[in-house]
């Protein structure tokens, strides 16, 4: 099915099942510990051995020697894999990381060896017996120090162009009546998903099956084939349940490669999980940015010039953190400029984390907007509303497919009680606590990609859906089931959803906020085809056939749906592809975040007291799951605002706080009741589902709303995240 024109009325619009706040269909499994995650697929393998990775002790240099004698002699050891015996290994196409070091070391905790033993305890103990000699080399670990050496990166597959210019930014900024020119920083952040990267690898001849934990099965197969130098056809990846990803499990990382190599070396299936303290320096992360924002406006608060520059670093060939993305579309202004610069750093690879670019970009842009509103003596909500635009500010005449930013801000302000905010910082105190309120806009692109599915009807009228889409906590199982049930006119419990298997038809997987909209559209296409097959099988008029209540009718005649499969299951497979609508329209999601904080007047401890989010993100397929995506993102935003930072030791070249005690993420006590308002939106330019993603939108702007609230509480403007009490203390004395 090719989607080229805005969708008209279709079976999804019945909204009998789509749009309902259905409980997740896999809930009984997840809440009872019955859902199997990668490392837990014990039933699939016999005689499994255990792998354990030894990470590099240095950040940059070469391995001169590995003495394996003690490790080899250790109890239970079956094999030791190093670069010396692993064979040629290439890289994947999304990450530039090499997953086995040697002789070069590219970054700290890069895998140096994989030890395979009969038990986990034996593998772990033997790994510590490897004696590795290194020759250290000088590395580059400090973005501030190499900022001026940063280059303009080549155009990237994802993200904005490295440079954009509309009108005369420099001239307009120079002559603006009111100006802001500030520099902000966002730190290196970790995905810190709860399930570590884990794989069980099993070879049968030259066929490799891996139970793993990755978000994009198609990329996973492509990349693992590339890395190991084997045909894609020989690889099957299975990820029925994934314990969180947030971009940190996009495709193949060290666990998949190490387990595959280890299983081959040991001649047995191998299970391997990255130990938590290894994850922070071994895998990928959201890289640090330095961002300069310039805004010029006239006295009435109309923006005349807006410029956003961002510097980040990465391993050679790695991607640029595209922090300028949101600034291109969020506010009006005739004269605009964005610029990305990339430096070389020898830290672990920087790559996608939930709303890459847009999350860190909005962390800073929305503080800048708060600062600008204050300079203009305007209310921050009013300032944002005044600079709303209903067309792409870089391409006048190109409309947004839907855009209700103003309504998001107004609805949120009312629900939150924004009118109670005192614009003068530090003016509200309750006991020992200073109270502040902050706001930020939210914006996140709404990409959609081709996606395929297969649907099978049996004679009892039940439907089985298969697609290689994954569920990383997003609700994929449920919304895919809801889509099929709506399309086929059956109850949700008549649908079995099978996902997370690369042998199923290809979807774009979970990432970039495209998963829900894309994968359900693929299921729509397959179901559309199945409806035709059913109608023709039953001799019904295809155009008139109605599917509802488990029946098919064309007005004259009616059959039970299962009757069409009386002589055998009916199977339909299709893929949805897209025309040019995404070029014709700016397809984007919008929102607004409102936050109240309390800051202790003596210690400057910061606690979030209230949070309200309003989102405008296309048709909401399941309000319960969508709301959860948003509250989860709001929680991650609180972490980004107040605590999350991987600290670089610039002498040694590594992230020092590389565990979950050192890298703090929010806990229950940090998060109050969160209110989410989902504005009604149907975007027919997107797909037949008329839906967009929401999971990344929920994060964009949250941290800035918190930071702005802290400013309102204390009068101290912190421009370097995370906003911690020491940074406030330093500015109050």
């Amino acid at each position, binding site marked *: 099915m090719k989607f080229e024109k805005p969708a008209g009325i279709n079976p999804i619009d019945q909204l009998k099942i789509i749009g309902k706040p259905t409980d997740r269909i896999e809930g009984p499994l997840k*809440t009872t510990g019955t859902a199997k995650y990668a*490392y837990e697929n014990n039933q699939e393998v016999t005689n499994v051995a255990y792998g354990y990775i030894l990470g590099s002790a240095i950040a940059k240099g070469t391995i001169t020697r590995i003495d394996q004698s003690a490790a080899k002699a250790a109890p239970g050891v079956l094999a030791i894999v190093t670069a010396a015996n692993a064979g040629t290994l290439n890289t994947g196409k999304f990450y530039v990381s090499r997953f086995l070091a040697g002789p070069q070391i590219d970054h700290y905790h890069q895998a140096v060896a994989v030890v395979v033993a009969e038990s*986990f305890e034996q593998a772990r103990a033997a790994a510590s017996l490897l004696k590795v000699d290194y020759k250290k080399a000088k590395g580059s670990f400090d973005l501030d120090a190499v900022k001026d050496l940063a280059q303009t990166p080549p155009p990237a597959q994802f993200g904005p162009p490295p440079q954009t210019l509309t009108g005369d930014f420099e001239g307009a900024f120079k002559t603006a009546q009111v100006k802001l020119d500030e520099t902000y920083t966002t730190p290196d952040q970790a995905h810190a998903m709860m399930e570590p990267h884990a794989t069980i690898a099993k070879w049968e001849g030259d066929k490799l099956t891996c139970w793993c934990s990755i978000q994009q099965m198609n990329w996973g197969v492509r990349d693992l084939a590339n890395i190991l130098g084997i045909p894609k056809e020989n690889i099957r990846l299975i990820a029925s349940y994934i314990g969180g990803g947030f971009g940190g499990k996009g495709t193949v990382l060290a666990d998949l490669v190490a387990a595959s190599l280890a299983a081959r070396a040991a001649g047995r299936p191998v299970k391997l999980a990255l130990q938590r303290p290894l994850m922070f320096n071994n895998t990928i992360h959201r890289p640090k940015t330095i961002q300069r924002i310039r805004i010029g406006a006239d006295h009435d608060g109309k923006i005349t010039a807006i410029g956003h520059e961002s510097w980040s670093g990465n391993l050679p060939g790695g991607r640029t953190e595209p922090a300028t993305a949101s600034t291109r579309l969020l506010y009006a202004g005739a004269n605009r400029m964005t610029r990305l610069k990339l430096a070389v750093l020898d830290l672990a690879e920087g790559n996608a984390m939930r709303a890459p670019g847009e999350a860190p970009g909005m962390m800073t842009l929305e503080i800048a907007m708060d600062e600008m509103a204050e300079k203009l003596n305007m209310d921050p909500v009013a300032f944002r509303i005044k600079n709303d635009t209903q067309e792409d500010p870089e391409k006048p005449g190109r409309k947004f497919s839907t855009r209700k930013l103003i309504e998001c801000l107004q609805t949120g302000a009312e629900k939150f009680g924004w009118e109670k905010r005192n614009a003068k910082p530090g003016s509200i105190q309750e006991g020992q606590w200073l109270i502040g309120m902050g706001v930020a806009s939210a914006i996140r692109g709404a990409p959609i990609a081709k996606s395929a599915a297969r649907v099978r009807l049996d004679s009892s009228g039940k439907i089985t859906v298969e697609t290689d889409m994954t569920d990383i906590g997003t609700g994929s199982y449920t919304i895919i089931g809801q889509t099929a049930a709506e399309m086929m006119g059956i109850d949700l419990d008549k649908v079995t959803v099978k996902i997370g298997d690369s042998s199923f038809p290809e979807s774009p997987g979970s990432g970039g906020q495209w998963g829900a909209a894309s994968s359900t559209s693929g299921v729509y296409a397959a179901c559309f085809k199945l409806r035709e097959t059913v109608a023709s099988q039953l001799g019904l008029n295809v155009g008139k056939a109605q599917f509802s209540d488990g029946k098919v009718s064309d007005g004259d005649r009616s059959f039970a749906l299962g009757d069409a499969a009386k002589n055998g299951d009916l199977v339909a497979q299709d893929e949805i592809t897209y025309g040019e609508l995404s070029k014709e329209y700016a397809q984007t999601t919008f929102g607004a975040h409102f936050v109240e904080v309390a800051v202790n007047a003596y210690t400057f401890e910061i606690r979030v007291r209230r949070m309200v989010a309003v989102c405008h993100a296309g048709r909401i397929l399941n309000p319960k799951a969508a709301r*959860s995506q948003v509250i989860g993102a709001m929680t*991650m935003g609180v972490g980004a605002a107040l605590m999350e930072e991987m600290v670089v030791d610039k002498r040694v070249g590594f992230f020092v706080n590389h565990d*979950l005690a050192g890298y703090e993420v929010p806990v*229950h*006590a940090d998060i109050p009741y969160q209110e989410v308002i989902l504005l009604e939106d149907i975007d027919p330019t997107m797909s037949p589902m008329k839906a967009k993603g929401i999971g990344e939108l929920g994060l964009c702007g949250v941290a800035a709303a918190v930071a702005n609230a802290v400013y309102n509480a204390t009068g101290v403007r912190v421009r370097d995240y995370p906003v911690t009490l020491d940074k406030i203390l330093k500015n109050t004395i």
Partner: protein
Amino acid sequence: MEDENGFGGITRREMLAGTAVAVTALAITRVTGLEAAPAAPIVTPVESAGVSFSVNGKAVNLQIDTRTTLLDALREHLNLTGTKKGCDHGQCGACTVLVNGRRINSCLSLVLQHENDSITTIEGIGTPENLHPMQSAFIKHDGYQCGYCTPGQICSAVAVLEEIKAGVPSHVSADLNGPMKFSNAEFRERMSGNICRCGAYSNIAQAAAEVAGVEG
């Protein structure tokens, strides 16, 4: 497939370990499904010791590598994979189980420390066909997303309600000597050893409030 006791059909084979320290090691082999394929014999020496305890009401005797944590014993030897390994260092709470009714991090406990203990894992709290009220409330309030921290959250939440009933105070209890009552703030403080990176906290608190019978 799991047997009715939820142990996935474990067999134990005694192996003579012939080690320098003259301990007798028993290799515990996992058997998957109904096909009890024999494991390769383990001939390597390990320091091992015996321990007996009960899991979800079923008696267990293990002769096991002394280094094995309760968490790894459950997951790798008893096929009870509902208890999760998130950090293996007591920093996330995904491995929470109940020992004699009290919640602990099973990753920071040697299985040998549990002689005669009565252990309850998520599999013993409820099953898909027979959910515990806390599990039902988590489903109703969407108190989970990826599901990986969820068993630990549920075990912890069940224990927290008991701790409040038993009058155990918390960091946020205004009066240490007064009666303890469920509140949103009390629950959140007590649950802070269970990290949920998906950020389902707000919903988890509502689920627990419903089970506690108070307004969230």
